[in-house]
């Protein structure tokens, strides 16, 4: 069956439908990761987006629960050059077509994804719709131009509704779930930390009441500007408890300190983003998925200093507070998909929590 992708600028890509039938609106983005399609599909940060894979052959090793980063696919649509009808891997349980069908996700295959990628690169992220219906293109373009693909505050679509406790025998961490990937939980809990996942709008008071050794702020979808109340909660946590933020968590910490964020023209999405640690001079390859970034010139007076930069465009990739135990990175040290080169950031968080605990004890002794 045929399917179309229609962009808000009127461009149309006709290809083969896979996954579910119907129509689905979203912001069209691309990711350059060559593996990890299931992790990408299930990353809640992609909520509201139609994801294009630049690597042409997708679904080769099938689908398996181990590759899930949340309970199921979070994207609004999926665009590939070719999907594997007959995947091959010892873990393979089903092909990506049936997986997306079951999840109700609309997919489009057999199109020139490189052409689409270049359109996004040149004109910035665009609204789009994948459809298997006969609705005229002009109607779709009209709806896209009036914002049919936009969703507001998508964090609330993906955050946990209830508190979830993962007991551990080491330090207690509260993880604020803005759309947290399972990989992050694995990285924290895997170190023996006692992790309590709380909904995004949990207040600072509720959090502090649990007497955590540290608070983790997760990744998540959407524009950080839209989350004033979440920023408010974080403001009251800074200095009270060690903080570590990733991706949206990083952006929200920056905002809480008074910095500004801005939209990137077409985002950083992939498993190959080079980042330099300005403190050590060491460089790592990172996994990234973000459309917004902390503005460089907005840091004056925030107490934040840049610890990491992106070697491609020089944008901010990591921050730390000069006075308080608080640091954050724009990229994904938990990987999944992508390299695990920055895994040690979780150790840094642990060290920070330990050091803070000792300082506190020292303060009490006085």
């Amino acid at each position, binding site marked *: 069956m045929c399917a179309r992708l229609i962009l808000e600028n009127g461009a149309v890509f006709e290809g083969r439908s896979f996954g579910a039938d119907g129509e689905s609106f979203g912001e069209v983005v691309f990711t350059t*990761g060559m*593996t990890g399609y299931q992790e990408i599909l299930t990353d809640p940060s992609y909520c509201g987006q139609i994801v294009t894979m630049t*690597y042409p052959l997708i679904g*080769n*090793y099938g689908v398996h629960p181990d590759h899930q980063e949340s309970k199921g696919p979070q994207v609004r649509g999926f665009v590939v050059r070719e999907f594997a009808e007959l995947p091959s891997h010892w873990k393979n349980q089903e092909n990506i077509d049936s997986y997306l069908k079951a999840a109700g996700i609309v997919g489009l295959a057999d*199109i020139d994804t490189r052409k689409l990628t*270049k359109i996004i690169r040149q004109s910035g992220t665009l609204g789009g719709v994948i459809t298997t219906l006969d609705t005229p293109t002009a109607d779709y373009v009209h709806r896209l131009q009036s914002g049919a693909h936009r969703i507001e505050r998508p964090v609330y679509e993906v955050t946990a509704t209830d508190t979830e406790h993962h007991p551990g025998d080491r330090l207690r961490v509260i993880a604020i779930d803005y759309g947290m990937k399972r990989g992050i939980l694995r990285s924290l809990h895997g170190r023996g930390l006692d992790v309590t996942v709380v909904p995004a709008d949990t207040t600072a008071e509720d959090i502090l009441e649990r007497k955590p050794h540290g608070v983790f702020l997760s990744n998540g979808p959407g524009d950080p500007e839209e989350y004033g109340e979440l920023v408010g909660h974080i403001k009251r946590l800074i200095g009270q408890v060690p903080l570590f933020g990733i991706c949206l968590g990083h952006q929200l910490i920056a905002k809480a300190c008074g910095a500004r964020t801005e939209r990137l023209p077409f985002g950083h999405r992939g498993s190959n983003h080079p980042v330099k640690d300005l403190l050590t001079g060491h460089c790592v*390859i990172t996994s990234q998925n973000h459309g917004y970034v902390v503005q460089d010139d907005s840091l004056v007076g925030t107490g934040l200093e840049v610890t990491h930069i992106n070697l491609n465009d020089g944008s901010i990739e990591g921050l730390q507070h000069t006075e308080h135990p608080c640091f954050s990175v724009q990229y994904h040290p938990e*990987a999944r998909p992508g390299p695990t080169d920055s895994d040690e950031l979780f150790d840094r968080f642990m060290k920070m929590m330990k050091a803070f605990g000792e300082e506190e004890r020292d303060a009490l002794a006085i």
Partner: protein
Amino acid sequence: MPLRSDLRKVLVIGSGPIAIGQSAEFDYAGTQACQALQEEGLEVVLVNSNPATIMTDNAVADRVYLEPLTPETVARILRAERPDGLLATFGGQTGLNIAVELDRMGVLEEVGVEVLGTSLEAIMKAEDRELFRSLMHRIGEPVPESLSVASFEQAQAFAQEIGLPIIVRPAYTLGGTGGGIAEDMASLQRIVEQGVQASPIGQVLVERSIAGFKEVEYEVIRDSGNNRIVICNMENFDPVGVHTGDSIVVAPSQTLSDGDYQLLRTSSLNIVEAIGIEGGCNVQFALDPHSDQYYLIEVNPRVSRSSALASKATGYPIAKIAAKIAIGYALDEIRNPVTGKTSAFFEPALDYVVTKIPRWPFDKFADADRRLSTQMKATGEVMAIERTFEASLLKAIRSLEIGLDSLDLPGTDELEEREIERRLGQADDERLFLLGEALRREWSTERLHDLSGIDLWFLNKLERIVRTVQGIEQEGLGANRVLQAKRMNVPDTAIARAAGLIERDVREFRKGVGVRPVYKMVDTCAAEFDAATPYYYSTYEEEEEGSPTSDRPKCLILGSGPIRIGQGIEFDYCTVQAIEAIKQAGYEAIIINNNPETVSTDFNTSDRLYFEPLHLEDVLHVIEREQPEGVIVQFGGQTAINLAAPLAELGVRIIGTQVDDIDRAEDRERFDRLLADLGIPRPLGKTFYQKEQALKVAEELGYPVVVRPSYVLGGRAMEVVSNERELLRYMAKAAQINEDHPVLVDRYISGIEVEVDAISDGHNVLVPGIMEHVERAGVHSGDSIAVYPPQRLSEEQKRTIVDYTTRIAQALQVQGIVNIQYVLDDEQVYVIEVNPRSSRTVPWLSKITRVPILGIATRALLGQSLLEQDLPTGLWPEPTDRVDVKVPVFSFLKLIGVDSTLGPEMKSTGEVIGRGRTLDEALYNGLLAAGFPFVQRGRNTLLTLLSSEVREEEEGVLEQVSELGLALQEGDSLSTDEIVQQIRSGGVQFLLTVHNRQKEKSTRLMAIREAAIQRGVPVFTSFDTFRAYGAARRIFLRGVELPITCMMAATSVRQPTSVG
């Protein structure tokens, strides 16, 4: 860390002659390294014995030593040059071994030269099996149980403990020489003994076999600050068990999940850190197809064939960046060569699939054992880029130039089911096509997987190709069916065959329905950033990239495809030099080629690179897009020349010698008429189209005669036959003889063979040099030792040769370059053949005469006359104070079953140069560089096996043997077993076997020669070669060091004063 300020001068070691396992990839790597150093203002001194390399051009290095790559010679160069640093990781295993040896000899310390990049200590950690294993144990990286042994007894004990099968890997050898998989104790004994022999340290590793695992490679770069990146990973189509150089390889990996990919990526980063790599490194893994278990196979602590492939597959120039790291830079300080803006610390993202297929020499060596195992047998490889695996694979297949364009191999439909089953289980060069045949027979992919161990993902893709072509067979052309086939890049020729049409019909149909390819860019970043790499591949999609417009006129030059016997790196040298000249002449130089190992496929070489098959359809598509002024076919060997006629027929302009004139040189009857008109003699010869005519023709000419099919490359299927019986046997073997494929028979003249390369503008002719062959006619020119200037020719003969050459070139209206071979019978000069193209002697001849042959020829074919170039005609003056030789190098050790006797069929894989003040000195340097042993102490036994018929040719050579410090032993009365035993036990140092052609092929001689080759004993099959060795040995015995010569950048071309 920025550029080190303490470095002024750096010595780079090249890899020497092309052999199986060490090919053109090191010219590419070495050239990049030298350029990277020059960019930084460093003085580059290069040593390499291979004259056919771009790296040995003075434009690439400041000072070039074309000297033997022995530790002793390099030590002398080090003492003379006193460089600050030594780069040894760009010359393959040869470079590493020399550096290790120089260190052991204490030379590095004595001269105060520092090994740059990865340290020798680190190299040892990767190369010494035991050091490597203990290091891997320490960092928790799994290696299969293994043991270094020096004898079969030790191996046997290990096998009894671990169980069979066992893999045997000799230490420090090229391409796994002498290794293999032992399924039983008998084969274990054979392989271990041969491996111990092949290893320079007499050691092999016996190891638990992990055959059947997925084989995956990572190309890693690390700098001294421990910044690490993976440039590319690659997955072998063939599971573990086939040498990676003999495997079909895809990039990136296709069947690895993100978890698998990252598991091995992290492991490879940990490994390069633990070893202490500073530069490029290749890490090979085996991954269990049924679990997360993996093993390390090996680590190459240097740039390699795989890194060349990864560079071309991604656009990331690994060797160049590795060289910058060696001189001090950190990865993030090096500019990204693709974007020109960001840093070199990034990992490429691919948005296409790359397929590499090895090119094996079995078309030339019909007797060779074509099974593939841990010992590499391929001479070269092709690479293809497309958006799907099917398309990429099919492009690669037709790039091979093996007469196939799809998964169909003629004849396989007649094979018995059992035969196919057996051959699917044991990889050989045709397995891919047998899979195609099995799929046509509707065998299930599961069955194929069980037989071959190849991942189902790949097999499913093959099945799609087969079904798509079958769809056309059953239903004929149709817009949708053709579109689907083209999306898989099925060529028009294969579609035509399926539809029962001819190629042109399909082309017309396709154009009618608007199915045509577009071109996309290789940009390292999957279009994430704007890039301007002039590096393209075709695909059947929507968007066309990179505007082909230009303000300069455009020239398309055809490359020479994969390296094979008969068409080696020389043609890449010619292509690259021609590109340079095209650019200088104000044209935009556009190239099509598909060999990932070469300099010509570096996207910086030409103005635009099309990485495409050299197949008519693909070439036409590029021409349609680029609309060049014309196409240059003279520099890409027979590959390019063969495309001239079909292109011209379709109205494409061929620049240079015209197609009709090319045909006059190549078509025997027309060529005979041409020579008759010119009054130039050639050995009597005839062409026939039916087997029945053969005897009559031979009878007329008189035996011995040379027989060969017309239009051949490197003397394929050419033989000298002495009588009727041999001729009948040849006819029975030569499969195709018909109107389109005639056979040529010539009277055999056993005289001095001579060849010339000449340049002509259509009127005037310049002969840069006459080259004389050491071996008499009958040995292929590519397998003969060539000498310049000629030593045995009279002035009269030279004048005749120049006169003939001039008149032939004029008559053929040669515009550009031509190669002519002659044979001398007393004073009579006969023409043997004319090649209307560049030849394998051109790089060597340009270097030694310092005549920029390719530049002049290119300008001539673009229309600038020799006069306008201020050049003389006739013979370029010959030097009186020096002699140069070109010595062929063979890879018989890798090719079981191939007869090492030299004859009219070319067998060598590479060549070296030898320079001297006299012929004997040049021979000494050349033979030393080619690997002939020159040892005085210990045993020096020469065993001879000579048939009575040939003894008259011996001309007293045996009488002088004792003067050479050799003990002569006549072996004719000994039994085969006795001789083989004596060879194996080290009782023979040289073997001289000369026989008439009939006896040559006897099993006795084959067995003896093979034993000698396995033991590294030089085998002489001609008195001429042995005489040359004798002359060289006399120089050696004199014990006087010969001067080493350095070529420096020529300031101007020497103007000749006299003309021959």
